[in-house]
């Protein structure tokens, strides 16, 4: 790809890289650091991009690699901040008339990271299962099952307002709200 085109496409992909990075690092500042490093890596290895292939998928693969190489280092040094973040997210969604974005993000944050990643790639970014599998370096069937488990888990979490309590008699509140949202369109 010619340098100006590459740069143009790279600039155009920044907003998506930032959104994808947030699914790894919930702290926006950490997510942006991840994007910065991804941009540097992408720029320096732009000759390895095959024109005609999915540029965003190529970038997402780099971002993932950057994240996991940092993460391995981090895990050795301190307690995993993302795990801690996930634990802190285990709070019940507010009981509003409908399910708001904060409730949804809370639920999303409690998913295992591999499931969340698969769901975001397929459900939010609109990658095919095949593309998502390539980005994550795993089998297509693995992506499919992660997405399914993520969806089921979300319904489960949102269907149980107590989350950690073993018996919730009003366990369908959040799903009721989802249905209300669905009816509203």
């Amino acid at each position, binding site marked *: 790809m010619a340098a100006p085109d590459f740069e143009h496409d790279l600039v155009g992909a*920044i907003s998506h890289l930032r959104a994808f990075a947030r699914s790894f690092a919930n702290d926006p500042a950490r997510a*942006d650091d991840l994007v910065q490093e991804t941009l540097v890596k992408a*720029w320096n290895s732009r000759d390895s991009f095959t024109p005609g292939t999915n540029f965003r998928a190529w970038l997402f693969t780099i971002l993932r690699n950057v994240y996991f190489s940092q993460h391995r280092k981090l895990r050795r040094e301190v307690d995993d901040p993302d795990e801690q973040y996930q634990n802190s997210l285990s709070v019940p969604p507010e009981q509003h008339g409908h399910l708001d974005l904060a409730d949804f993000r809370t639920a999303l944050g409690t998913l295992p990271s591999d499931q969340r990643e698969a769901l975001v790639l397929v459900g*939010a970014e609109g990658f095919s299962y095949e593309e998502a599998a390539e980005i994550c370096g795993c089998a297509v069937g693995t992506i499919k099952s992660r997405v399914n488990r993520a969806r089921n888990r979300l319904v489960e979490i949102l269907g149980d307002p107590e989350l950690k309590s073993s018996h919730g008699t009003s366990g369908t509140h959040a799903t009721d709200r989802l249905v209300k949202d669905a009816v509203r369109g």
Partner: protein
Amino acid sequence: MTIPKSVQPTQHVAGESDVDDEPAASIDAAIQGALGRKLRESYEEVVREEVPDKFLRLLNDLKLAESGPADSADSKVGKG
């Protein structure tokens, strides 16, 4: 004569329980549809955020670093 439990036919009253099944399936589809929309809404909200200048400055720095010090004097800062 008793019939072992395992071979007892399931007591399935076709009419009533089938009526129950259908709304359940459509509620499930509705929930999944709503979840999908929430997911996209949540993601798009971040995508729509204005991209901070630091990213564009970074790319510009990368370009300048490559073009070398001789070039950098007349390089434009950004594309305007």
